[in-house]
C-alpha cells in the first residue's frame, strides 16, 4: 500500500486532524460529500475507540485498488489491552469503556467492509474500506 497517510492519535485534537485528512483524501479520490462525511465519521469513531481503550495509537489512510474497483481504506492500530470478546464488541450496546457502545457497530454500518483483529495484551487493528460509487450497504 503506497502513500499511506498516518496520523498518530493521542488526544482529542488528533481525532479532528484524522477526520479532516480522511475527508480530504475522500474528496481527492472522488467520493461524494455525503460519503466523505460517512468516512470522516467512521474515522472519528475509530480514533475515539483508540483513545478510550488504548490511550494512543494511529490511524492510517490510503487509496486501495482491488478487483477492478477502488476506494479508501482506513486502518486503526493500537497497542492497548486488546479486545477479548470481539463478537460482543461489534454488537450493539456493548461497551466496557466510557459509554461508547455504538462505536464499532456504528463504524461497520458507515463503511462497506469491516475487519478487526485483536489480541489480548497486544493490541487491536481495525481495517475498514469504502468503495467508490457503489451502493451503500
Amino acid at each position: 500500500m503506497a502513500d499511506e497517510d498516518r496520523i498518530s492519535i493521542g488526544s482529542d485534537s488528533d481525532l479532528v486532524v484524522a477526520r479532516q485528512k480522511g475527508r480530504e483524501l475522500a474528496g481527492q479520490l472522488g467520493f461524494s460529500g455525503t460519503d466523505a462525511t460517512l468516512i470522516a465519521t467512521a474515522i472519528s469513531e475509530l480514533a475515539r475507540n483508540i483513545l478510550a481503550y488504548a490511550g494512543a495509537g494511529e490511524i492510517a489512510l490510503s487509496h486501495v485498488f482491488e478487483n477492478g474497483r477502488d476506494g479508501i481504506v482506513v486502518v486503526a492500530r493500537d497497542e492497548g489491552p486488546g479486545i477479548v470478546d470481539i463478537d460482543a464488541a461489534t454488537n450493539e450496546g456493548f461497551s466496557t469503556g466510557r459509554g461508547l457502545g455504538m462505536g464499532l457497530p456504528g463504524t461497520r454500518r458507515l463503511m462497506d467492509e469491516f475487519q478487526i483483529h485483536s489480541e489480548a495484551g497486544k493490541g487491536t487493528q481495525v481495517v475498514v474500506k469504502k468503495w467508490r460509487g457503489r451502493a451503500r450497504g
Partner: protein
Amino acid sequence: MPASILKQGEYLIASIQSALTDGEVLQLQDDIAEQVGRFRSRGVILDVSGLDVIDSFVSRALHAMAITAKLRGANAVIVGIRPEVAFAIVQMGLTLEGVRTALDLEEGLAFLNRWGKETGDSGR
C-alpha cells in the same frame, strides 16, 4: 472557544462551532445547566450547524445537554444538523430520541415561542 452561549431574551443559544473535546462537552453541559438557572431561561437552542461530523460520542453529548436543560426546566431544541450529518447519524443507527430538533435557528426560536404560548408564560 469552540462553543459559546448567548443569552437572547428568555432563551439561551449555545453555538457549537467546531469539534469539542470531552472536557469541553462536560463544561458546556455544566454551563448550560448553570445559566438556565441564573437567567431563569425558558428555552435552550443547541446550534450544531458548525459541526461537520457528529459521531456517537457527540450525539450522546447533545442528548445529555438537551435532557440537562429539560431537567432544569428549560425546553431544549437542537438546530442546524447538516443533511450529510443527518444521513451519517441514521446510518450509524443512532437516535436522538426524546430530543426536539428544528431546521435552523429561526425555526428553533419559532418552536420555543410556540411552546411558551401553549404552556403559558406565567408561573415561574
